[in-house]
Each structure stands twice: as structure tokens, then as C-alpha cells.
């Protein structure tokens, strides 16, 4: 028996339309053996959390390149906690200045992957953190 496959929701919160990174990560996670659901663009935190619950995921990965991460990432974490799903691992990526990362981690974002991160690092981080 193989172990249960990790389920990941890749989400694009906010109005930003840059989804190259989100889709490339989604593909890499799928090729890494995970089950991946991609939300598409323009998702509100409420929509992301409801998709995460409905799809029963282990991980929510969000990508923002517009600078709205400081508002939207913590909202998703808080909403997950409110719904009793605080155990879902939340990670983020995009154009996120180094100095914003401590506050995001404080808010409950487990890891932030900036530009230049190899795909394999993201895949192995998720595997190690979930299992």
C-alpha cells in the first residue's frame, strides 16, 4: 500500500493575474505525486478557504505578485483557523520582499518561497512538512 497522496490547493488570491508561477508550481507538485487543485484567478480569502475545506486538502499554496500578500495571506490563515482547519499547512510565494516575511510567518504562513526557488525545494518542503 502506498501512503495517502498529499492534497494541495494552489490559489491565486486578490486581483493579480500573474499565474505563471502558480501553474508551474501546481504542475511540479502534481509531477511530484501530489493531488493538486488550482483555483484560477481572483479568489477571495473566503473562496479559497471554502475550496480548501471542500477539497479536504493538506496544504494551501498561494501566489501573489501584486503586493497584496500582507493583507490577503493572513486573512486566509485566520479564516482557516475559524473554520477549525488550522492544521492545514499554508505556504506562499510571489514578489514578496524579505522584510515582509517575518510578519507573514508570525501570522501563520509556514513558508514563503521567493523568486528563484527551485521546484524541487518546494516539493520536498511540502512532503517533509505534511508527512
Amino acid at each position, binding site marked *: 500500500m502506498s501512503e495517502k497522496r498529499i492534497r494541495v490547493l494552489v490559489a491565486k488570491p*486578490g*486581483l*493579480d*493575474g*500573474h*499565474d*505563471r508561477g502558480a*501553474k*508551474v508550481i*501546481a*504542475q*511540479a507538485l502534481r509531477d511530484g505525486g501530489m493531488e493538486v487543485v*488550482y*483555483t*484560477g*484567478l*481572483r479568489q*477571495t480569502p473566503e473562496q479559497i478557504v471554502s475550496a480548501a475545506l471542500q477539497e479536504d486538502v493538506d496544504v494551501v499554496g498561494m501566489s501573489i505578485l*501584486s*503586493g*497584496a500578500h*500582507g*493583507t*490577503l495571506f493572513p486573512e486566509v490563515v485566520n479564516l482557516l483557523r475559524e473554520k477549525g482547519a488550522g492544521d492545514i499547512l499554508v505556504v506562499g510565494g510571489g*514578489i514578496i*520582499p*524579505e*522584510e515582509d516575511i517575518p510578519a507573514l510567518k508570525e501570522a501563520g504562513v509556514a513558508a514563503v518561497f*521567493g*523568486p*528563484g526557488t*527551485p*521546484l*524541487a525545494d518546494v516539493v520536498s518542503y511540502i512532503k517533509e512538512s505534511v508527512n
Partner: protein
Amino acid sequence: MFKQDQLDKIAANKEKWASKLEATMKKRPARQTEFAVDSGVTINTVYTPLDLADRDYDQDLGLPGEYPFTRGVQPNLYRGRLWTMRQYAGFGSAEETNQRFRYLLEQGQTGLSCAFDLPTQIGYDSDHPLARGEVGKVGVAIDSLADMETLFDQIPLGKVSTSMTINAPAGVLLAMYIACAENQGFKKSEINGTIQNDVIKEYICRGTYILPPEPSMRLISNIFEFCSKEIPQWNTISISGYHIREAGATAAQEIAFTLADGIAYVDAAIKSGLDVDNFGPRLSFFFNAHLNFLEEVAKFRAARRVWAKIMRERFGAKNPRSWTLRFHTQTAGVSLTAQQPMVNIMRTAFEALSAVLGGTQSLHTNSYDEALALPCDESVMIALRTQQVIGYEIGVCDLVDPLGGSYYIESLTNALEEKCMEYINKIDALGGAVKAIEYMQKEIHNSAYQYQLAIDNKKKTVIGVNSFHMEEKPPEGLLKVDLSVGERQVEKLKKMKAGRDQAKVESLLKAIREAAENEANLIPVFIDAVKEYVTLGEICGVLRDVFGEYKQQIVF
């Protein structure tokens, strides 16, 4: 291009040379098993007249300013006037962006290029729930003519040219620009600039769509018609490959998908009853300048030739100005690294040089800190200086198409034209660009994934990312847009709305609804409305109500 006896002699010499090459390769093997450009064209060791044996100089190249425009759209190009140095800028409030614009003009920039925040690009006012966290982040927030007046305060709109990166609500922003220029005392016919107005690529890859394709194409045709009559200098659309490339496309896919989009706009405008030579000369394009220097030069040349043929042969345009592909270029944002950011200055310089050698009409050079944040004043200045070095110091602007005639450049131009036409034929077979959106998305995604894998497995070297690492201090002095911008903008909007005659606003919105339902040209009613400070969100709200919203298919 060459006589047969010359070619025979070269062929004989090349055969001898090949055995010499083989001997050398035994001692010094090639660095990699294959050399190729990402578009899928193999690169040989060397190019000779043999690679161009089947070509005809007049038919394939001609002279600059002459069909098929491979060598450029103007006879004297930069010997007359350099390209327009146009840095894309905008962030926070209209006051802050106005200051950045005036700073850039003082530094010698020759045209403005305005970035709008995402709520503006998607037709929401700053107080809309979906605007939360986004107001003023990636561009300036414009809710009404009041913001537009602040944005261009002390900038004479009859004297500068302005490019506005606005697509789905382009008609409304154009209406505000016209109203603002008229308030400054200029006539419509005196203003000059560009709206991006390219919605198909929003569906494909950029994401700031509002309406479904059919009403979007109608709005675009409305703009073509209105501008051809009222503001003849205006570039009514900037058909954009830039974002298609940023999303992951190869050079060949970039030009193919862009020109396929162009075909769709021309088709729609002709169907709406316009004459191709009426709007054809005002179509403009926007391309990316990426890292593979020579491939990029060839790409620009190939795009010009393909478009000239499409306009003349496919659409029967008679005006030579309809045949010319005039384009803006921006260096590749995706090529910038967060690691060792100063190295981005060099990347951007080479990319910018490829655009100049490719004959661009205007250029934006990225700032070195843009993989980290919006650019700061210092990095923007260096980016502009990079263009000035190319324009004034290194001699490449003293003649037209200096790389024309290079065996490799010509051969690659031909190869990219062929690849481009293969994609265009495929898209035609699918029923045109609007029907082929998901096909293009899949192609782009596959290329993006391959590109990332090539970096991860080190087939592609990226300095600072997968090789030549070094310890770095975290960068300092990055530009930050604080959240109070949003709060202030919402406050301002509230105050402005309170000062309006509500009955008048309602009647103007009703006129827009009627025009939308009755297939009238929408631009004149937009102008009437924005003059009375009806907001962007109110106007787009009516359009959403009448036409519905586009829902994206998820493809990955």
C-alpha cells in the same frame, strides 16, 4: 541573393572545412550536445550564404521603410529621431504618480507610460470589497476624472504622448484622458498616445478581463471607429506579446499568438463595418525583449515581415501604413533575479540593445530591483540611463538595421517566420484567436514549465540562481506602498461622490445602458459621463450588468 557559382565555391570550401571542424571537435568537444534557441530552432556552428540560397533580397528584405519592412518601418529610423524612451510608472495615489512622471520628464524621458492598479484595470472603484489590499499597489488608483486631473497636473497633455496600460475598461480611461486634456485647453485632435486595449491576451495570460469576448470585441471596434474620426494620432490598441512571453511563451509563440490576436481584432473591426485602411495604420504592438540576444533581434524582424504580409495579402490593405508593424518593447521582467539584483542592470541593457537593433519605436527598460518590489527612484534612473547609453554613446543608432545581412540573423528571421506561421495556421484551424485561447494557454504553460525545469536542472544558467552564488545582505531602500493609500483614496472618493448631482449621474448611467443595449458607439456616452465625475466602477457596473462577466476556464 547569391550567384550559383559563388554558392558552389562556398559549398566546396565548407565541405573541406567540415572535416577540419570534426578534427577540432575531437580535441575540443562542444560545451553541450545541442545548441538551440527556445523556439525550437537548432543553431549551427556557423552560417554562410548557403543558408540564404533560396532567398530573394527584394522580396524578403527590401529597404527600410519598404515592404515587407523586415529592415524597419522607417527609411531613416534612429538617424531621424531615437525611439521614445518610455518608462512604465505608477503607484499609490495620483499625487505620488504625478511626481514620478514629472521626475522622469525632468530626467529626459520623452513619453509617459501609466500603470494602473488592479481595481482600476478590472473596473472596480477603490471602495469595492475586491479592491481590499490592492489599491495603489501595482499602479495608480483612478476612480474618476478627479484622479485623472491630479495625475496629469502641470503636464500638458497636448505636448506629451501617454501610453496607458489599460485593457478591459480602456474606453472609459480614454474618455477621462480626453476630458482631462480638454479641461487643460487642448483639442481632441492634439492629443497623442496609446491605450493597450488588448483584451484577448487578458483572457490568455494577463487576467484583467471584465466582459465576455463578444462585447469586448465590440468595445474595441467602437474605439477604433471613434479614434479614426476624432483623435487620428491616437494608437487605438497595443496588441501585446509582452505578457504572453512573460507567462512563459517562446519567442516564436510570442509573435505568433500576438499576431493571431491582431488578426482577430482586424476581423472584428471589418465585420463591424470599418475599412481596414481606416484603422489599420493606428494598430500598434508591444513585445518583450528577452535574454537570447540574437534570437530577439530576429524575432522583431520576423514579426514585421509576417504582419506586413497579413495586412496586405490576407486583409487586402492598400495603405502602406496599414502594413507596418510599429511596436513598443519592454525588457523581460521574468529574466530579473532577486539574487544579486545589480546583475539585472546588465541583463536589461542587453535586452534593450536587442530591441534597438530590432528597430523598436519605443522602449521601457526594467529596473534592477523589480524582482523584489516596485522600483525606487535610483533604479528607475539607471534603467533610463541604460537607454540613453544605447541611444547616445555606443553608435548603434547611426544606421538602420545594422545586423541585417548577417547570415545567422537572416536565417533565424526566416526560421522564426516559419514557426510563427505554423502556429497562426493552427489557430486559424481552431477558428481564430478567441476560440484558441485555451490552446494558447496550454502551449504557454508547457513552455513555462520546460523553462523552469531547464533552470532547475542547470541546462540554463541563471547567475545568482543556479550558479555563481554569493552571500548577500538583504536589499535596502525598496519602495513600499503603504495601506493608508487605500484608505485615503476611499475617503477621497466618498467626498467626491457626495458633491455630485445624483440625478444627473443616474441619467448618464442610463444613457450608457441604452447605448450598450442598442449597439451605439459607447465612447461618446463615456465622455459625457466622466465629465460629470461618474466613476469607473459605476460605468463598468452598468456594462457588467448588461453584458455579464467573463469566466476563465482553468487550464494547467
